[in-house]
């Protein structure tokens, strides 16, 4: 117990006062840092994105000169996303929105329309300059556009250039900076691909035949000169009918397919059925459209895909 000027102050009161002071200063510091952060973000362009790879592309292009904002929260599957009121609030704070635009983020256009931003918000169509290819394994004259341009390095580079150019048009002050960053990022992606290309150079892939559960990997396979003999699912997550499945199993057997690529984090009994019926080896690729939004996500998950591809080819060529 302390005695001051005749008053008795208990030790508990002193501790209480000290704790309150500490809390107050923490709150003050936190508020100050928020204000500083808000000030720092003031005047910066806010660039919205719809898919995880575009977060990586945009973050590497804009550096610290703009803020990249995912239109939907992490953890939602963009394949079957249903827009929410929060998305509309968020879209109204944007200066531009980067979209796939060719079938992988149709919900984004609903959000733009519903929020009254149609015609007001500049849309950056990442695939404007990408030479599109049909979904692999399609037969006959009907060719369906493959919208998965973001699961390959060459098509990614083309999109990075388009995004950088369009952002430069919206924000001319930083155009040269965006363009320089885009070149640097593209070089990094090419270097990563080259590393695995070297690994493959000793392998004989002339007889490598593969099938994929999902039509997402056509661009990736094309840049490695690999042929996809069959795609199992008619659309993402849509199971084939029994007759379609029987037809696909026949196609796999006839084309001497040795490897089936499924999708990571997307367990499928169907893949097991096909494996048992045909004896193919199973490997899984990342679709790069799940989990947290991170600047290095595209590079990290593409590298995992390249390692998977290398292991799959090795397993067949060395067996």
């Amino acid at each position, binding site marked *: 117990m302390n005695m001051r000027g005749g008053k008795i102050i208990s030790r508990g009161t002193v501790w209480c006062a000290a704790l309150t002071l500490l809390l107050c200063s923490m709150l003050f510091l936190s508020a100050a840092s928020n204000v500083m952060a808000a000030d720092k973000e003031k005047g910066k362009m806010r660039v919205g994105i719809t898919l995880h790879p575009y977060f990586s592309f945009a973050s590497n292009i804009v550096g610290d000169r703009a803020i990249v904002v995912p239109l939907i929260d992490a953890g939602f599957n963009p394949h079957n996303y249903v827009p929410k009121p929060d998305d509309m609030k968020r879209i109204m704070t944007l200066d531009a929105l980067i979209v796939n*635009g*060719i*079938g992988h983020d149709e919900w984004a*256009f609903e959000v733009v329309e519903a929020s009254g931003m149609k015609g007001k918000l500049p849309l950056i*169509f*990442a*695939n*404007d*300059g*990408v*030479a*599109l*290819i*049909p979904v692999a394994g399609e037969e006959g004259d009907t*060719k*369906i*556009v493959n919208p998965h*341009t973001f699961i390959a390095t*060459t*098509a990614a*580079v*083309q999109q990075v*250039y388009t995004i950088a150019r369009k952002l430069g048009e919206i924000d001319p002050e930083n155009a040269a900076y965006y363009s320089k960053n885009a*070149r640097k990022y*593209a*070089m990094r992606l*090419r*270097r990563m*691909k*080259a590393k695995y*290309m*070297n690994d*493959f*150079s000793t*392998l004989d*892939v*002339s007889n490598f035949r593969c099938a994929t559960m999902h039509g997402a990997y056509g661009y990736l396979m*094309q*840049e*490695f*000169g*690999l*042929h996809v003999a069959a795609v199992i699912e008619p659309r993402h997550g849509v199971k084939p009918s029994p007759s379609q499945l029987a037809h696909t199993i026949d196609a796999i057997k006839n084309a001497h397919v040795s490897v089936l690529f499924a999708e990571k984090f997307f367990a499928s009994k169907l893949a097991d059925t096909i494996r048992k019926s045909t004896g193919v080896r199973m490997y899984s690729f990342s679709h790069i459209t799940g989990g947290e939004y991170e600047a290095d996500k595209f590079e990290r998950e593409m590298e995992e895909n390249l390692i998977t591809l290398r292991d799959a080819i090795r397993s067949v060529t060395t067996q």
Partner: protein
Amino acid sequence: MSVEQAGCRQHAYFTIIPPATGRGETRYVVSVLCLIVLFTGMLVQLRARSDVSMELESWQLSAFHHLKGTNQAVFSALYTASEDVVSIHHELGHWPSIEELQEFFLPPFARDISWKQWGEIQWNLVLPESSGADTAVYAGFDGINPDQGTFLMVFSHVHAPSGEMQEPTTRIWINKNAEIEMPVVFTPDSLVRKGWKQVLPYDGKMEVRRLKG
């Protein structure tokens, strides 16, 4: 309504009343069904998306529709590389040699697994002397895959009076005749006369136009 008007026949002691056939109702139902079918048909037509198609001249091919396998892959790589080649040209001040492009790991020039898979095409940089626009050509010959085409990526550009290069026009050409010789003149007219076809991409811009109008 009188008895006669209702289709009933009046006899001396009794009246014959014909059974209700529902013919009128059937007609109404059929008419309504026809209208519904017509209306939904019109709606389907209005909302239907057109097929993936392109308007081409006789000397042009669509990479999406007319090229397959190796040829399609080489075209995609060339198309993406064209932007890099122009940027590298700006940086270096000259058209990059094939070796310089290989240092940038740039497909289809880099000699990696895809180069092997794509028929080991031999690439050469050709800088023809011409009046007017300057021309740089990346020519890919002698691919070993069956049905492999020969490629030309032609950059034509003019220099401003200050000497600065203006954005070049890039055209990619294919010739499926394996015996074709390297052209001397690379103008579109001359190449078309020699049987070369200009390859055009089906790009995202066209697909967005098809999907969204």
